[in-house]
């Protein structure tokens, strides 16, 4: 809508430009034009103008260049670079931490795990879920092996040098990660926590896991802390097995009492008796030499137990009676497997297709690398001393227990031919 004020101004200013005035102004314009045409070019403004109003070909070229830079910059280089930085920082954190705690889950079901604790300058603790614990004080060269199920302990002094490397190697698995991973696995969400994964295709320099196929390390990028490690093991002739390292705590306060070498109250020392060996036993039971070998799978009908081990004969009678009632013949001598006094089982090996009913269970003892020794003599005699000596031999050979202990009882009491095979699955520490 036209405003009357606008109309008034327009009507008062609508006069034509007189020719004489126009001529004068045109002369000014000619002078101005000459001046403009002789004006030196401004490179800065020309450049600015070319940026603000670039020709179409330049826009296309710049867009292509930007996209290329974006692809290289955001997708390839920084991703790899950032990933490398995160992994290197996490490895350095583990390497330089004064304390380190973590759990190796060897088997999920049934749960078989080992807790490791390390505190500078040389305190170490290995706590197995089946009740064996090794505490080492590297500063004095002493260590104590606790057998919680038997309430017994084995004290060693001055000989830890032999077994020290075995214990070190477990800590070394995490403490010697290289600065670069072999493969970047990408991102993964664990609940609300973002993790980034890296893969090592060979064991860390100072650590060794037999049959290691891959070591997947998952890191919290915000804190550069290792969240967990998945280990895939593929040994020749055996199915692929996955283990995990969890509950990793680096550089945090550790309860020093877990390294205490004082035996707990109520635990008895495993002492080598000086008496002559039993006639039935040609070998000294306290100088046992564990044999490391591959054992096959055993399928057994067992009854789950808890409480005193003195219940073993009664439990075996129950199993034997049930199998006889079912017309099933055991395929081997009776056995017992022990996690702790609160969890153990005993029974007879049977054919895999055997059907059992509660309270019996059909269980499988998997094929594994196993330390074993056969001790002649009455079943159940000097049990603590035998196991202390046997486990010491295992540690001295560079292995650590990797599962529940097992006993297999052979022979006949009436004929004086009793023998006990002691077994424990092991894993090499180097």
């Amino acid at each position: 809508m036209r405003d009357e004020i606008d109309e008034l101004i327009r009507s008062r200013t609508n006069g034509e430009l007189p020719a004489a005035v126009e001529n004068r102004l045109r002369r000014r314009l000619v002078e101005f034009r000459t001046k403009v045409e002789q004006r030196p070019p401004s490179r800065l403004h020309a450049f600015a103008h070319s940026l603000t109003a670039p020709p179409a070909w330049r826009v296309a070229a710049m867009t292509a260049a930007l996209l290329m830079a974006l692809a290289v910059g955001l997708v390839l280089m920084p991703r790899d670079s950032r990933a490398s930085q995160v992994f290197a920082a996490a490895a350095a954190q583990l390497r330089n931490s004064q304390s380190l705690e973590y759990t190796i889950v060897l088997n999920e079901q049934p749960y078989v795990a080992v807790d490791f604790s390390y505190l500078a300058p040389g305190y170490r603790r290995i706590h197995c879920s089946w009740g064996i614990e090794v505490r080492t004080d590297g500063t004095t060269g002493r260590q104590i092996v606790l057998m919680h199920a038997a309430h017994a302990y084995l004290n060693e002094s001055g000989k830890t040098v032999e077994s020290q490397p075995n214990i070190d190697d477990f800590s070394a698995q995490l403490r010697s990660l290289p600065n670069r991973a072999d493969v970047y696995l990408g991102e993964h969400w664990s609940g609300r926590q973002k993790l980034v994964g890296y893969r090592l295709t060979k064991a860390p320099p100072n650590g060794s896991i037999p049959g290691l196929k891959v070591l997947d390390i998952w890191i919290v990028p915000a804190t550069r802390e290792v969240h967990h490690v998945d280990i895939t093991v593929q040994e020749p002739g055996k199915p692929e097995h996955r283990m995990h390292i969890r509950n990793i705590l680096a550089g945090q306060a550790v309860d020093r009492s877990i390294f205490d070498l004082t035996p707990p109250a109520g635990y008895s020392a495993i002492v080598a008796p000086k008496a002559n060996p039993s006639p039935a036993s040609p070998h000294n039971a306290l100088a046992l030499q564990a044999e490391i070998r591959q054992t096959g799978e055993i399928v057994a009908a067992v009854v789950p137990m808890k409480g005193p081990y003195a219940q073993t004969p009664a439990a075996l009678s129950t199993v034997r009676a049930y199998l006889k009632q079912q017309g099933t013949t055991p395929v081997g001598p009776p056995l017992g497997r022990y996690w702790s006094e609160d969890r153990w089982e005993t029974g007879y090996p049977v054919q895999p297709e055997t059907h059992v009913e509660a309270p019996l269970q059909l269980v499988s003892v998997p094929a594994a690398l196993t330390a074993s020794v056969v001790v002649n003599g009455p079943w159940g005699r000097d049990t603590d001393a035998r196991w202390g000596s046997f486990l010491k031999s295992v540690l001295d050979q560079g292995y650590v227990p990797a599962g529940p202990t097992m006993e297999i009882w052979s022979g006949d009491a009436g004929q004086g031919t009793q023998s006990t095979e002691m077994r424990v699955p092991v894993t090499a520490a180097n």
Partner: protein
Amino acid sequence: MNDRQQEYQRLIAPIEERMMRAVWRIVRDPDDTEDAFQEALLTVWKRWDRICTHPNPHALILQISIHAAHDVWRRKVRRGRCLESAAIPEEIPDPAASAIQGIAAAEQDAAVFRAIGSLSNNQARAILMHAVEELPYDAIAAAMDCRESTVRKHVARARTKLRVLLSQLIPEVHKEERSHA
């Protein structure tokens, strides 16, 4: 044709007529028009690089021209020359009108320009660009380097003031005032 010649052809050549006419319409005196035009060209020369990259260079050049003309007019008002020049219209004779009508028209022109001269610089520039050159608000905003809403405010306030100052020249306003009386 070099870059500068191309720039002149792009920026000045298309609006030469409008520049000259805009200055003349406001100043209405041959010498003062030449002075104002020269001032405008000098300003354009100084701001040449900025004008080259301006989003609406023609509006900016017209704004510079109007501003220069308005400045000359204001100086003239302050010197008291406007009445004199308005009383003797040299270059806009109206052959069809009588001498009395010519003088009355010149007085009305002088009243309009005196009223515009009493406005603030921004209001005067905005109303002149809008009313004389009929530039749209967005072009005026680009030339004055402000928002379009600001230009609308300048124009609205200028109209309000001019409506009061020039009420005797607006028939409707005049009628309303008489009816109220």
